[in-house]
């Protein structure tokens, strides 16, 4: 069974994302062997309404800005959050809101889903992380210990560990079952992305100063072991946002002045320069296959990229003044994006 976890793990770590969110593991089943049919439904959603490259706005909105959006596992549903302190569950085909949760803890800029698709890990504005049941909105666990602003969260593929980083002076790791705070890794700058490696015992991070670091969770807790195993320098523009690829070895980093570069996360060498925008990159995502990417930013544009060639395939406009989050469906036929006017939109990629 162990080898079966690898594709699940890779997908959990890397897929995609809103300015910071990842699609659920089950929805990625097309590339694993468990036989789930998430993508079949997603294709039918697309076929039911939208022509290729057509975008449609959902029928509600998040006040003064959407912050995160992600497809839920295999049911044609999506979840989003915004500065209006709400989380909304959407029916993707109709664009209608099917559920609505309110309160400060439903104000989050990143989402990690459990492998069974039932639970969501999200950061609250008070730096607490909440692990909650998507169906009911009820908290299962809270993770405390961070002092300030967690903006990026991750769940390990085996579901046992949770991690978060952001404006705090450290990356934190918790045990999901007990809520126990396990590790605290001091960082030099803000953390724009954390992701577990498929082995469940290493974390990767991208910091605002362009460093991509690897951390060991299993090592004994002492001062030296709270340092990264290694870091590489990436980025030549103040880093605004990043997403790891499913293989864990590539990372797409966007900059404040519009740079968008796919990096070798192990060596710190640039692999592809994606040229098209000169505006602040606010959201990036890499598709499960690793072949496609999405970016969005202050030019009000969402771009679909071919990562094999580094070329732009298509683009579409948002209704707001900037795109704040983007996400792929597991089968890569649909994209979701949100913007600073609170709108959430679905975009047919095929």
């Amino acid at each position, binding site marked *: 069974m162990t080898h079966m976890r690898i594709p699940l793990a890779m997908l959990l770590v890397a897929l995609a994302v809103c300015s910071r969110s990842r699609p659920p593991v089950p929805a990625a089943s097309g590339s694993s062997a468990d036989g789930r049919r998430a993508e079949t439904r997603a294709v039918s959603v697309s076929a039911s309404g939208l022509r290729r490259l057509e975008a449609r706005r959902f029928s509600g909105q998040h006040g003064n*800005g959407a912050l995160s959006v992600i497809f839920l596992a295999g049911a044609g549903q999506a979840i989003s959050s915004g500065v209006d302190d709400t989380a909304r569950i959407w029916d993707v085909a109709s664009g209608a809101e099917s559920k609505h949760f309110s309160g400060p803890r439903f104000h989050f800029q990143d989402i990690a889903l459990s492998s069974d698709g039932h639970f969501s890990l999200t950061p609250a504005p008070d730096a607490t992380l909440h692990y909650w049941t998507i169906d009911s909105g009820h908290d299962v666990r809270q993770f405390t210990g961070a002092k300030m602003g967690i903006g990026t969260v991750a769940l390990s593929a085996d579901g046992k560990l949770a991690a978060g980083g952001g404006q705090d002076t450290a990356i934190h790791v918790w045990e999901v079952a007990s809520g126990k705070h396990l590790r605290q890794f001091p960082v030099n700058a*803000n953390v724009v992305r954390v992701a577990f490696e498929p082995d469940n015992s290493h974390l990767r991070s991208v910091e605002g100063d362009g460093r991509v670091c690897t951390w060991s969770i299993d090592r004994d807790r002492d001062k030296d072991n709270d340092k990264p195993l290694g870091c590489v320098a990436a980025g030549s523009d103040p880093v605004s946002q990043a997403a790891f690829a499913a293989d864990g070895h590539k990372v797409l980093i966007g900059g404040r002045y519009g740079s968008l570069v796919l990096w070798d996360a192990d060596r710190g060498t640039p692999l592809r320069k994606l040229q098209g925008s000169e505006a602040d990159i606010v959201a990036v995502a890499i598709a499960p296959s690793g072949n496609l990417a999405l970016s969005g930013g202050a030019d009000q544009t969402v771009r679909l990229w071919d990562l094999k060639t580094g070329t732009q395939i298509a683009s579409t406009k948002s209704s707001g003044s900037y795109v704040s989050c983007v996400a792929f469906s597991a089968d890569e036929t649909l994209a979701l994006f949100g913007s600073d006017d609170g709108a959430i939109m679905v975009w047919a990629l095929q």
Partner: protein
Amino acid sequence: MAAMPNGTRIVHSVGRKGTNDRSDVLIIQQLINDNLPVPLMPLNVNGICDPSTIFAIEEIQRRNLHMKRPDGRVDPDGATYRFLTSIPGQKIAWGAKVSTAFKTKLIKIAGNLGVDPDFLMSAMAFESAETFSASVKNTASGATGLIQFMPSTATSLGTSTTALAAMTAEDQLDYVEKYFNPYKNKLTTIEDVYMTILWPNAIGKANSYVLFSKPSVAYTQNSGLDANNDGDITKEEAAAMVKAKLVKGRGAGYLG
């Protein structure tokens, strides 16, 4: 404790489960009204420790002292009393151009971050074109407010530029603190304070470090900083503008 005249120090605790001697309650109510570090209606200074007084104490503890569980009480030797009595006498660069509430909060935040409040004020004076406005906006980049939050920065902080523009400058300071927090206790020069906003990679680097070179988008958007117009913007050139704001902000009519 220089702010209050002689004879106005509290003797016993005030607030929830406090002793609440009338003379002490009067002092605390007046101190809260003098500072109003939170957007509250002024208290009725009546010497009675009513629910609105306790609520104001809790709000100060929550917002300014970052207490997770405010106890709603001011003790004569406690942090809340020190906070209420230590602020008004201090003068900072540009302090005359902001509200007392703003200044009070800024001093507290600078203390949390280990940064000279004058450096933070000067960086904000430069970024906000001396307005200290939460909504001042660069229409080209979308950068907004006190430190010109970029759209990506706003999103990372869990907000939006629209939401930032809609809040008070005092409330926006929470996001300034959040933005600077990863660099807590590392910013000892005005150059590095400004680099945190402009180009964090340059924190700790020499003043000759080149931030942006021509031709690049970053250079074009910041070309006004290239004082000698040689196609390179160094850390020193970029920070020169903020240093000029420091000199101005410490001058008559601005210091306060």
